[in-house]
């Protein structure tokens, strides 16, 4: 078959190729300079592997690397240990407040970043609100600042995501499979362990992978609550942005190492899942079973406690937004001053945040759906793995690094985007494409290919199939995926820090500047954060009501 015939036969090939080129230019090219500079020696002339080696030899870099890896593994394990059993019970057994639990979990995944860390310091820092009381009670409490603090905030920050993924995996298991096991004499718990758990493995491993790479890339939390514990993202951030004009070689090498770690985890996940079949025929949902009364009480109690801990930061921030702040120190009396300041000086960022997020989400969802289609329905020898890699790369690149790559590439004629809204939209779009794609993939897997083939058989072209059949059927999943993407973009910080201009200041910037600055504007940060939380949670809640989607978009 000639190439032209192949294209006519399968128009998606053209789509895949176009996507490949676009992603190559937007994702790979800006980061190529990172590769290049990682291999440059300090003199800027010769090529060397020294930058990489120093991550193993020099204390400063090695410590950051080891800390990051340790944190990632420990946080992920703990998050899974806490979330998976709870999710299992909620998926398979009848428990009160099930819908509320899912809503809360979804809200948890959309939380604004790093404010959680600050809130926990406010509560449990050395001189935090609760700490002196704990010490007075005789408990050996010192402070939440440190390695353990990062883990604590990380676990509860990841809880929502892990819970949702696990819940979805367990809830979509074919009930017949466990019943089959029980019919051969296995006890119910045996069936759970031997059948349900392994079958839910893909979803669980995906959750673990996302949590792990998220922790590896998280820079806000360790920056605030880590104390002297240095981690890779913060190290890279400072290497790139050092006042001393340090050679970006180390930062570049570190970026590649970050990407390598995340990729390695992905490979590991694939390896574990490869060669196993997880085909499930039914779309039947499991009818929840009953637990003995005491168990219901215990599980419900533990769940309530877990979500309380997850949302403590939000409550603390909301509370502190009504306090009077002077020079970073809160005090009474209660006041609306912080909101007044917001309304007078910071209302524009609210609109800017919304607009930028909306546009970039729209683009991300469209592109993500196309990518998902190619990933799920096609298997091109070279293009498919390439697209998959290109799509996942942005997830593995720290936001700061991505931004710098974009600045370097897009700051010269003929395309000058720096300082404009377009470069922010571009950065957001690139960063969120992996999420949008995964979400669309999840929805697509639930659409049987026969439905599309039937449309082809009555004469619909692939474009018409997409328009009339596929898109209609995946729409609920797309909408909830789009909403989550929108909300994550709304709270994005690390890329925005490098790319914003005076007219494109977002809510995140306002919060970050006020919270990190020495100017004592934490009150403004808190009130803006509350507005952001409301802007995030209300739409999220409404969408969940309208589209109670079964798939986990996350």
């Amino acid at each position, binding site marked *: 078959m000639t190439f032209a015939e192949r294209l006519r036969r399968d128009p998606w090939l053209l789509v895949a190729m176009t996507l490949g080129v676009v992603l190559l230019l937007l994702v790979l090219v800006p980061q190529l300079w990172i590769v290049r500079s990682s291999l440059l020696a300090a003199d800027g002339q010769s090529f060397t592997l020294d930058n990489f080696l120093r991550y193993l030899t020099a*204390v400063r870099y090695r410590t950051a690397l080891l800390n990051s890896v340790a944190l990632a593994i420990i946080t992920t394990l703990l998050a899974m240990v806490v979330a998976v059993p709870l999710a299992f019970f909620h998926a398979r057994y009848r428990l009160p407040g099930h819908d509320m639990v899912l809503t809360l979990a979804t809200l948890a995944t959309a939380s604004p970043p790093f404010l959680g860390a600050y809130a926990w310091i406010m509560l449990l820092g050395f001189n935090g609100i609760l700490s002196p009381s704990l010490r007075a009670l005789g408990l050996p409490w010192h402070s939440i600042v440190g390695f353990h603090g990062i883990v604590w905030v990380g676990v509860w920050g990841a809880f929502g995501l892990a819970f949702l993924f696990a819940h979805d995996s367990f809830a979509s298991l074919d009930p017949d499979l466990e019943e089959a096991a029980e019919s051969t004499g296995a006890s119910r718990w045996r069936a759970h362990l031997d059948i349900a758990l392994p079958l839910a493995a893909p979803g669980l491993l995906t959750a673990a992978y996302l949590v792990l790479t998220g922790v590896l890339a998280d820079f806000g939390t360790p*920056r605030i609550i880590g104390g002297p514990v240095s981690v890779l993202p913060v190290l890279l951030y400072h290497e790139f942005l050092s*006042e*001393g004009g340090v050679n970006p070689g180390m930062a570049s090498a570190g970026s590649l190492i970050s990407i390598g770690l995340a990729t390695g985890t992905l490979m590991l996940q694939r390896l574990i899942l490869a060669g196993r079949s997880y085909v499930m025929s039914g779309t039947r949902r499991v009818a929840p079973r009953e637990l003995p009364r005491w168990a219901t009480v215990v599980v419900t109690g533990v769940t309530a406690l877990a979500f309380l801990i997850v949302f403590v930061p939000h409550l603390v921030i909301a509370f502190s937004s009504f306090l009077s702040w002077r020079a970073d120190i809160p005090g009474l009396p209660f006041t609306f001053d912080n909101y007044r300041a917001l309304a007078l000086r910071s209302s524009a960022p609210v609109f800017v945040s919304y607009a930028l997020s909306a546009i970039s989400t*729209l683009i991300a969802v469209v592109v993500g759906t196309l990518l998902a289609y190619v990933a799920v329905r096609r298997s091109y020898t070279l293009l498919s793995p390439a697209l998959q890699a290109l799509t996942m790369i942005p997830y593995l690149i720290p936001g700061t690094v991505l931004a710098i790559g974009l600045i370097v590439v897009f*700051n010269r004629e003929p395309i000058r985007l720096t*300082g404009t809204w377009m470069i922010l939209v571009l950065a957001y779009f690139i960063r969120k494409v992996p999420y949008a794609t995964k979400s669309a993939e999840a929805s697509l897997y639930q659409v049987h290919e026969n439905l599309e083939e039937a449309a082809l058989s009555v004469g619909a072209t692939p474009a018409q199939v997409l328009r009339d059949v596929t898109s209609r059927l995946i729409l609920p999943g797309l909408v909830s995926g789009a909403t989550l993407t929108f909300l994550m973009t709304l709270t994005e910080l690390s890329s925005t820090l490098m790319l914003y201009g005076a007219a494109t200041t977002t809510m995140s910037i306002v919060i970050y500047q006020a919270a990190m600055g*020495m100017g004592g504007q934490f009150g403004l940060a808190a009130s803006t954060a509350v507005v952001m939380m409301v802007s995030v949670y209300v739409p999220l809640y409404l969408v969940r009501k309208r589209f109670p989607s079964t798939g986990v978009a996350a």
Partner: protein
Amino acid sequence: MTPPRRAWIVVALVFLVGCARPEPTKGSKAARPSAGLTIYAAQGGEVTDPVVDAYRVRNPGLVIQIIRGGMGEMLSRIRAEREQPIGDLLWGGSPEMYAINDDLFAKAELPEAGHFRQRDPSGKWHPYSINVIYLVVNTTRVRRVPVSYQEMLSPEFRAQGPIALSNPTVSGTAYTIVTSLVTALGWPFIDSMLGNAWLTDSSDSMFKWTKDGETAAGFLFEASLRDYVASGAPLQPVLASEGLIMQSDGAGLISGGPHPENALAFLEYMSSAEAHEIVRTRVGRRSARDDVAPAKGLLDLAGQKLIRPDPLWVGRDRKIILARFDEARERL
């Protein structure tokens, strides 16, 4: 209306709202308006706003845009935008930072330059304020205030908690601290201090840990100390017998910026007596001018011992100093 259609309408509306926002002038298309000025400020609003507001009153037609961030971020931005700079002026930073990045800045001669004690021979850095950097102890961690840096390293104080210190490789503030301490006490002091220090790449973290009591002590700018204490923070400065650490910060003209004339005019205003009176009264910082008294709440430095590192050594031997520091860290 079916749910999907409603969803599309909502999306379309948000999109339209977004597009309806007034666009910033995109660099490539807009004619650069002459009535504009873009300041990259590595300072908080409380430092810049009083002066900028006063300047606005004098120049009503001028549109001043301020972009804030850490010194490192601002320098990175300026460097990345080098081919087509967007900023006109960088506000903040010590003279070493400008020296290291001197390809990014343009020379300027200010008429009021004679009133400033410190001067940059290359004419790229223009002094604005002087800040004492105190070693500060948190009284919830320590029982009494030491009288010298050396005492801070004694077993008594070591037991009460670590000292917060930022990384001189990435922070100008930390570089000043380290070079001053080395000048006054030599490298052995640094080696010993690092044995009981919490290191961070971020000066802001250093300030926060000290204020919050996560560390027993740390280094803090005098103005912040004053403000924190006024709000009730349990902090006390160490009036060290070895001398006080001083840092100057200033501003510079970004080379190739879109509105060089406006930037120069602003720099001239920034160095004027009128502006520095505002510095004293409303900003609350110590002016670098020799004819302006320090702001309220700041120590009168007459009679105080001040550490004055050799500027030549600080500038020329930067790489050696940083390497020695890294070496000290490795040995931990």
